[in-house]
């Protein structure tokens, strides 16, 4: 499969401390890539670099290149990059407005004004995230009235509504109960037919269940990157072995 995101020699500093060290990685299209590693290993930092959410933090310095579809992401317009590379956060964060307005927010921002077109996008996005049947009768109700799991699926729908190519997920199930978690996982497996998903997770089983490729980060380094089956059954690096067998972390 051809890579959609390519990072070469990527380093990142928060002020004096280096959070990412010479990361080289190719992320293939239409697949799920899991980023695993102990807290503070740099996996979330790496994820946030891919749609430049780190730009917002003062004192961040980045060297090396990240290419999306062959173009340098740092040379691109950041807003258009983020339209292509969407993000779902750890804690569900719907806007304090109606369900409809949440999903329509992105398309409206990018210039879609037609009511019919917006209706269509909202319906399609909510169907894609398998939440349509639950909310179709209360689209005008405030999104904060939904349960945590529903809110997270709404946030995924909101991200899909701008028709991205890539979906970055930062521990999207860590705030959810087991049943909601399962639903999100099923959703991710279905979405990879159309989208490339990069997911940060603390949950080994989750990585094993849903991902095609797994990258193991430790202290800002990419220790090992390969097919998920291989990483979990036959890791090349001793540190990976220790981590996936639960010896530390």
């Amino acid at each position, binding site marked *: 499969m051809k890579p959609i995101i390519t990072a070469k020699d990527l380093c990142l500093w928060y002020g004096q401390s280096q959070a990412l060290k010479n990361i080289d990685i190719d992320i293939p299209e239409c697949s799920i890539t899991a980023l695993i590693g102990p807290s503070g290993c740099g996996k979330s930092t790496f994820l946030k670099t891919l*749609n430049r959410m780190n730009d*917002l933090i003062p004192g961040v310095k980045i060297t090396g290149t990240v290419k999306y579809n062959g173009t340098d992401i740092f040379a691109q317009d950041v807003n*258009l*990059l*983020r339209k292509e590379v969407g993000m779902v*956060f750890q804690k569900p964060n719907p*806007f304090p407005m109606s369900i409809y307005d949440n999903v329509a927010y992105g398309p409206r921002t990018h210039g879609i004004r037609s009511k019919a077109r917006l209706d269509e996008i909202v319906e399609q996005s909510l169907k894609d995230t398998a939440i349509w049947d639950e909310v179709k009768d209360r689209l005008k109700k405030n999104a904060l009235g939904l349960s945590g799991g529903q809110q997270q699926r709404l*946030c995924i729908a909101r991200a899909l509504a*701008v028709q991205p190519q890539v979906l970055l997920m930062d521990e999207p199930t860590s705030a959810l109960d087991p049943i909601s978690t399962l639903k999100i996982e099923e959703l991710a497996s279905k979405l990879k037919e159309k989208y490339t998903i990069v997911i940060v997770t603390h949950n080994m089983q989750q990585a094993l269940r849903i991902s095609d490729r797994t990258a193991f980060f430790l202290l800002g380094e990419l220790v090992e990157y390969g097919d998920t089956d291989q990483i979990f059954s036959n890791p090349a690096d001793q540190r990976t072995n220790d981590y996936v067998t639960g010896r530390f972390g």
Partner: protein
Amino acid sequence: MKKSSNLFENLVHGVFLILGLVTIACVLIISLYLIVSGIPAILEIGLVDFLFGTQWASTAAEPKYGILPFILTSIYGTFGAIVLGVPIGVLTAIYLSKLASESVKNIMGQMVSILAGIPSVVYGLVGMMVLVPGLRKLFNIPDGASLMAAIVVLAVMILPSIIKMSVTALDAVPGDYEDASLALGATPEETYFRVSLPAAKSGIAASVVLGVGRAIGEAMAVMMVAGNAPNMPDSLFQSVRFLTTAIASEMSYSSGLQRQALFSIALVLFLFIMLINALLNFFLKGEKKG
């Protein structure tokens, strides 16, 4: 021994209870005094003639006590100050809360506090000496002391409370919302206007209501720039009298029914303020609920 110390503790408790109730007593006494002294003139003049009479001529041989000009002036003046002051205040607040560097934020915070601390007579003085002649020249009118001058002064005076409360409300918007919007490819400006601003709406609404309260209650600054003729406010450039200034300008030499009518005006003003307070509480509760 035990008993006496219990007695002592109960005594202390009682003293603090009384101190706590002083506040309530003050509100009750103020309301009571205003109602008792405000009602007689309204009864004598007639509620409709008093509230909707368009002519105030308290010292004429055949006195007229219609306060509609004052009510309308207060409403127009407050409305004008809000129209002028709120956009400036809210735009400044968004800039300070979201975009300004730490040092700009600090300096402007000081500026806003200074603005809030300037006594109203000083606003009045500067208004009298700069704004009033300025308006006269600018619009080529016989006298600059007018509704317009009062609106400008009031707009400046409500600016600090609007900015301060709006900044607080905007600062309290969870960063999560803003991140989500940015991650959808919205620019920071789009994010602050379409997500942060709606999320902070009850706090900002409360700041506007607070501004309304300030503007409608201000007396001295307005007295110095509005001209004080009891005209119906037909034009922005007319000399007008507010509810507050109606009380202040005649109180020192009034007597009899005229004096009682001034108390009735105070009662009307008080009712306006109570209405605004209730509204403010409503928005602040909305703010707490999120």
